[in-house]
């Protein structure tokens, strides 16, 4: 598994709290049996109804790798189609004020590190990216150091999550199937599995 130590590229500022996964990926695009092509539908309805150009439709942010969001991003439905769509769109890291837990978990298993920072910092970064979309950004997973042009700050990530990325252990499947005897032991001690 790949070690993920750093993500660099252009940033994409997306303002708003409580942006739910229904908005990131409208339900009609969940009528699929694979995740392929979902990048085409990211924020599809928001793009149409947004007052002014939506950042995901804005040519200046095409090819961006780091999404910059506000609080409780990805709340609502557990649909992995949302982070899958973002990842396939090219987003390889997200910096935000906070994330919904299910969304965060989904991003982690997809190898998309999510960093958090306070509102003022995020707001400043979003303003910078709105003024200068060409700003080069680097997000260092190991230290949490985020640089965007001349702006520098340290963002947070839970230590365990950070270590998992840095050590290339962010996809849990291999670890979960590794000690199967331990799993059987736990199952045997649960009365509803073993029989009351």
């Amino acid at each position, binding site marked *: 598994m790949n070690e993920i130590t750093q993500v660099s590229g252009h940033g994409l500022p997306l303002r708003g709290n*409580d942006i*739910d996964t229904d908005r990131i990926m409208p339900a009609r695009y969940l009528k699929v049996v694979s995740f392929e092509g979902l990048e085409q539908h990211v924020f599809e309805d928001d793009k149409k109804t947004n007052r002014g150009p939506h950042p995901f439709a804005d040519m200046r942010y095409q090819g961006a790798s780091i999404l910059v969001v506000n609080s409780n991003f990805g709340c*609502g439905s557990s649909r992995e189609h949302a982070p899958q769509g973002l990842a396939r769109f090219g987003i390889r890291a997200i910096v935000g004020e906070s994330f919904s837990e299910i969304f965060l978990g989904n991003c982690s298993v997809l190898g998309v590190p999510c960093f958090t920072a306070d509102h003022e910092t995020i707001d400043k970064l979003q303003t910078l990216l709105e003024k200068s979309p060409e700003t080069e950004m680097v997000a260092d997973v190991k230290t949490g150091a985020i640089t965007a042009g001349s702006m520098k700050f340290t963002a947070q990530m839970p230590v365990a999550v950070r270590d998992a990325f840095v050590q290339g252990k962010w996809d849990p*499947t291999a670890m979960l199937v590794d000690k199967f005897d331990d799993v059987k032991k736990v199952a045997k001690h649960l009365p509803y599995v073993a029989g009351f």
Partner: protein
Amino acid sequence: MADTLFHKVWDAHKVRTLPSGQTQLFIGLHLIHEVTSPQAFDMLRQAGLKVPFPERTVATIDHIVPTSSQKRPFLDVMAEEMTVALEKNCREFGIKLYLPDKMEQGIVHVIGPQLGLTQPGVTIACGDSHTSTHGAFGAIAMGIGTSQVRDVLASQCLAMDPLKVRRIDVNGQLRPGVYAKDVILTIIRQLGVQGGVGFAYEYGGTTLDRMTMDERMTICNMSIEGGARAGYVNPDETTFAYLKGRQFAPSGAAWDKAVTWWKSMASDKNATYDDRVTLEAASIEPTVTWGINPGQSVAIGERIPANADPEALAYMGFDANTPVRGTKIDVAFIGSCTNGRLSDIEEAAKIVKGHKVAKGVKALMVPGSRVVAAEAEKRGLHQIFIDAGFEWRGAGCSMCLAMNPDKLEGRQVCASSSNRNFKGRQGSPTGRTLLMSPAMVAAAAIAGEVMDVREVLEGVPA
């Protein structure tokens, strides 16, 4: 040591601490449906992994099923393809599947409890955020993504971080016309849609103690709308009485042993919590949302706050300082895993009986499961709705998320008993959803506008 149900269940299911620092947690019951599972099975096949505990996964279809005609093949080609994929995956890996040709079919969060699969002390996972519903039985139930569905299939385990526990007490008697839905909408309004992030909510207090399982499910169901990944109620006699005799509930000598174990898993009296919140039932009013998240709500007699979020107001077409009451509706939807159970249909029927749906309003009554539908039909409730001009549908998610043909059009306004009023949630990118109790939806359907259900409940002063 005194402990909470959450920690007891967590400890009993903990396999080990993973090298990543997370806990490897055994999952006792895995529920799957057609929308979030096909890619998981593909990943499994690609990795050459097996399903070691196929009997611990149960599948149904609910999200995409048409609720008008459920004859196969479904008219919607993609719905049919997804169903065929689930059939194939379940056959290949030996997983039990309930399609609409089986009496057991229904919304995954309605059928788990109904079949007695959902039990106290069990860890439950499902690729669906409203898995928190099952917590009503004292289970720790969490929504997961598709990659995690793959993990549970492959290992019967999840890599998880523990949650903190917030105890929410609701005490006293709910006033007439106030339902479980109003309780949870009020909790979310008070604590915020982000308030529960990092927490499991333990609901208790004398109001919860008196509630039926259906009501407790409504409350636990919407925990996720308050940001809490799990919500639960400690198991008690009400829980046991509900489970007794159900298809997958223990029976005979095992029953008594099960009850003893279930009781032992409940939070101890003097357990400590990371946070506590208390509400008085008498202070809760019939509640309705005005915005684009479930925390943006008001009591029916209240006005939209002066400092309301301008984005939400613009989308909904509301002004600050105005009431939601009196808002004309185009569609009335009763159903969903929040409020699509028999008692919800009964409460709505009381309001609808002898009346007609207002002109120009499309009204849908969608039972949460085939069993719920059959039970309602046995009691003649369907006729009350049909006579009033409601469409009486087959079981499924329907207009809760509009993945089937039931959708809002344009900027239609829907009075809905479901759980999400997100932008575009009910199928139209500009459609508008007002969340409320099934009784309030019924009242709105008859009046053609949002109203206070207490005005039509006999003898109840508003």
